């Protein structure tokens, strides 16, 4: 067990080293969520009466800021697995596979690195939100929020690693990511309250782990509880999602890397 942790850390360390060396990537990945929060946040500022109808008193931008934090987490982590493909193509994977470390340690190391990177990117977005005037009633809440973002991103990195391990080409991988990422984001209360969705969509949204994460982060950030989901239920759903995704990713990864690429 000890050795699995050591090995996981080895891969984690390597992934973070690579991330640190690609500084331009950090900024490029911030552009999209920054546009969301600045542009969309202002375009929809007139919708304030809508969100007031569900008991939210603040500006629209304050309502949607948690949504954009989660957007950042989703996309950073779901893209994060792509270097699995490069590693298989350029031989690092074979290097790791012929060393004594276990296959699941490789998958776990990748996932934990991705989730930390996603959380770092999300924290930069929190910074942008603060800079454009979004306020936290209780600044200490940033700590549990970051915890949730890390956890949630771990689940999505599991999706990413699973897809990257099964995909034989970049095209397949990008295709699947796009197929999954946007709908999961849209089918959540990230931009609009759950109450405003048509009934059947609201049902679908309730099956989406993103929904619970957005609700939880929004409640921690603004103090307004919405959609009638208790905090503990949200936490439980997120935990279940993460455990399932990490388990699936480790299993699928181990199975796939044993086949020739």
């Amino acid at each position, binding site marked *: 067990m000890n050795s699995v942790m050591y090995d996981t850390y080895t891969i984690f360390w390597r992934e973070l080293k690579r991330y640190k060396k690609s500084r331009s990537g950090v900024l490029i990945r911030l552009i999209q969520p920054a546009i969301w929060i600045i542009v969309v946040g202002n375009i929809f500022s007139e919708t304030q009466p809508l969100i007031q109808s569900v008991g939210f008193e603040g500006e629209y931008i304050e309502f949607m800021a948690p949504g954009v934090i989660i957007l950042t987490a989703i996309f950073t982590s779901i893209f994060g697995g792509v270097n699995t493909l490069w590693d298989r193509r350029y031989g690092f994977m074979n290097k790791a596979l012929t060393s*004594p470390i276990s296959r699941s340690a490789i998958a776990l190391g990748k996932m934990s690195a991705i989730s930390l990177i996603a959380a770092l990117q999300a924290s930069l977005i929190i910074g942008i939100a603060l800079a454009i005037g979004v306020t936290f009633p209780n600044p200490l809440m940033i700590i549990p929020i970051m915890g949730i973002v890390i956890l949630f991103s771990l689940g999505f990195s599991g999706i990413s690693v699973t897809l990257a391990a099964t995909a034989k080409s970049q095209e397949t991988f990008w295709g699947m990511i796009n197929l999954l990422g946007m709908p999961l984001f849209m089918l959540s209360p990230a931009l609009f309250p759950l109450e405003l969705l048509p009934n059947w969509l609201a049902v679908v949204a309730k099956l989406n782990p993103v929904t619970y994460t957005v609700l939880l982060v929004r409640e921690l950030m603004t103090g307004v509880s919405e959609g009638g989901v208790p905090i503990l239920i949200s936490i439980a759903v997120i935990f279940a999602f993460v455990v399932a995704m990490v388990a699936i990713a480790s299993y699928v990864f181990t199975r796939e890397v044993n086949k020739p690429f």
Partner: protein
Amino acid sequence: MYSIEAKSLTKSFGDLIAVNDVSFSVEKGEIFGFLGPNGAGKSTTMMIFTTLLKPTSGNAVIAGFDVMKDAKHVRENIGFVQQETTVDEYLTGRENLLLQAKLNHIPKNEINKRIDEVLDLIELSDKQDQAVVTYSGGMRKRLDIAGGLLHHPKVLFLDEPTVGLDIQTRRKIWEYIKKIHIEFEMTIFVTTHYMEEADNLCDRIGIIDGGKIQVIDSPQNMKNALGNEIISLVVENNNNNDSFLAELKKIEFIKKINQDDSKLTLFTSNGTEVIPKIFQISSELGIKIITISLTQPTLDDVFISYTGHEIRDDKSKFNRKIEHAKMKRLRA
């Protein structure tokens, strides 16, 4: 004790049989060369040995462990340097080695010492803190090889360690391989399609072609089996050429003569005694010899004699030969 044992190894990809019933063993401490043209099945065999591929049938035992049943122990005892360079360009040379050390569970208090040692060996100490992007191809390859032996594996697998490098760098890498072989008493299994490399480096060579082992022996024995020395000479065209040829054939050591215009290739033994006789005959007939050389048969000749074709499947060269033959036929 054997370090590598292949027992009727077979690997097929769909209809293609990449490795076909291959059996051989490599003794502890040997440098064993696996020689064959592109697509012969060298890398595939090596990937089975290093637990990356499962054989379709047959089995292999590496450092005493079964690759199928005991892959983890195999991995603890091997180093593998792949055909493609795999060092991480974003990381520095030292960071690459650190990663390799961690992957291979080198004890924490040993890591720095080992890295310094190996950096010294590959002469990259002064560049260790630069990103690998700034390294030349040869430096990257050296770093890659260093990564494979950092943990002092019992068996080191090198897949074409010098492909694409200039001859100077290639020789240097052979030196490194010999050096580490002595220093760490490793068994080394190296694939190559450079004859010179196999000849220089290996205690024994296995020639593989079309997935099948053709022969296994030491380079010297292989060449000795061919027996002959080769004298090549170019003469000035002269009316007496035919009688010159006839006289040469009378020399007792000469076994065979190939003529290609004014170029003669003589397969012979006791070459040093034959040469003066050639000069004697040529001066008697008034034939001017432009060049003459005495060579040992090379592994190239060995390879051709076992497989019926040359190792380099360089298409342009091949075609030129066909064209050449055609032209000759036209002229005749």
